[in-house]
């Protein structure tokens, strides 16, 4: 765990210094391209977390593995945060380029839908009193959602080309030259280690909560047992 913490902080610090200080501004977008060093890794992580969530859910349902449920449930808020960051930074990046805060660009729109899928999962996971029901229900939703992500992406792309606003610059900007690639990768790996770090914390939390519930149940039953005997 501590090495996760150190590598996350180290990677992100390196990524930031390179991204903000050393890498050159873009010839068209100027310094606003630096938003890419947050936006693109966050977008990658948003998709990575949803895939991880669906994978863990499938493993949990097929092999009835409780830990996989815990992993999926712990991943959801992290994925949702990355999606939110991707949306916010995408909008902030879009403003100087297209003059409006929100553009129904194909990628941003798909990211918005992914954000709704995350919210749906989180709310469903919390909508049942019985924890086991909540886990299994949310797991089925994660898988159904995952199957739909490519279909939604396909439809949004088609829909976007249909109503193509005069967007001159695509969101990911010109081809990335090496000096920009390094900070981008550093930030991406830094975000990934952040994910595993917070995942570990949330899973430990969930496992301990499981123990607490078991102890509480035993106390309630032994009390009932004492009363009836």
């Amino acid at each position, binding site marked *: 765990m501590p090495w996760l913490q150190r590598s996350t902080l180290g990677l992100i610090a390196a990524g*930031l210094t390179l991204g*903000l*200080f050393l890498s050159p*501004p873009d010839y068209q977008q*100027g*310094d*606003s391209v*630096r*938003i890419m060093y*947050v*936006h693109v890794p*966050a977008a990658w992580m948003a998709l990575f977390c949803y895939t991880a969530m669906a994978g863990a859910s499938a493993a949990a349902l097929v092999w009835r593995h409780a830990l996989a449920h815990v992993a999926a449930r712990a991943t959801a*808020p*992290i994925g949702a*945060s990355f999606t*939110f*960051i991707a949306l*916010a*930074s995408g909008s*902030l*990046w879009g*403003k*100087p380029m297209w003059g409006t805060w929100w553009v129904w660009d194909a990628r941003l729109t798909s990211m918005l839908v992914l954000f709704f899928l995350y919210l749906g999962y989180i709310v469903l996971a919390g909508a049942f009193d019985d924890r086991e029901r909540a886990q299994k229900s949310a797991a089925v939703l994660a898988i159904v959602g995952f199957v739909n992500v490519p279909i939604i992406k396909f439809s949004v792309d088609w829909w976007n080309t249909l109503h193509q606003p005069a967007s001159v610059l695509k969101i990911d900007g010109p081809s990335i030259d090496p000096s920009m690639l390094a900070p981008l990768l550093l930030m991406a790996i830094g975000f990934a280690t*952040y994910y595993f*770090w*917070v995942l570990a*914390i*949330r899973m*430990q*939390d969930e496992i*301990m*909560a499981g*123990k*607490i519930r078991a*102890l*509480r149940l*035993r*106390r309630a039953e032994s009390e009932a047992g004492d009363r009836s005997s």
Partner: protein
Amino acid sequence: MTPFQAFLSMGGYAGYVWPSFAIAALALGALLFASLRSRKATAAELDALETQAGEEASET
């Protein structure tokens, strides 16, 4: 316009670059902080329950 101020202005895009980094830092920081705090609280609760269960075991 000292180099530091030039850096801060981000070629005129300061209003967009800094907020996006700030939002990222805030979101990730808040999630981390909330997770750490919740884990600490759960750990404390678990210890309390376990010590209590331990005492009862020793009494009976």
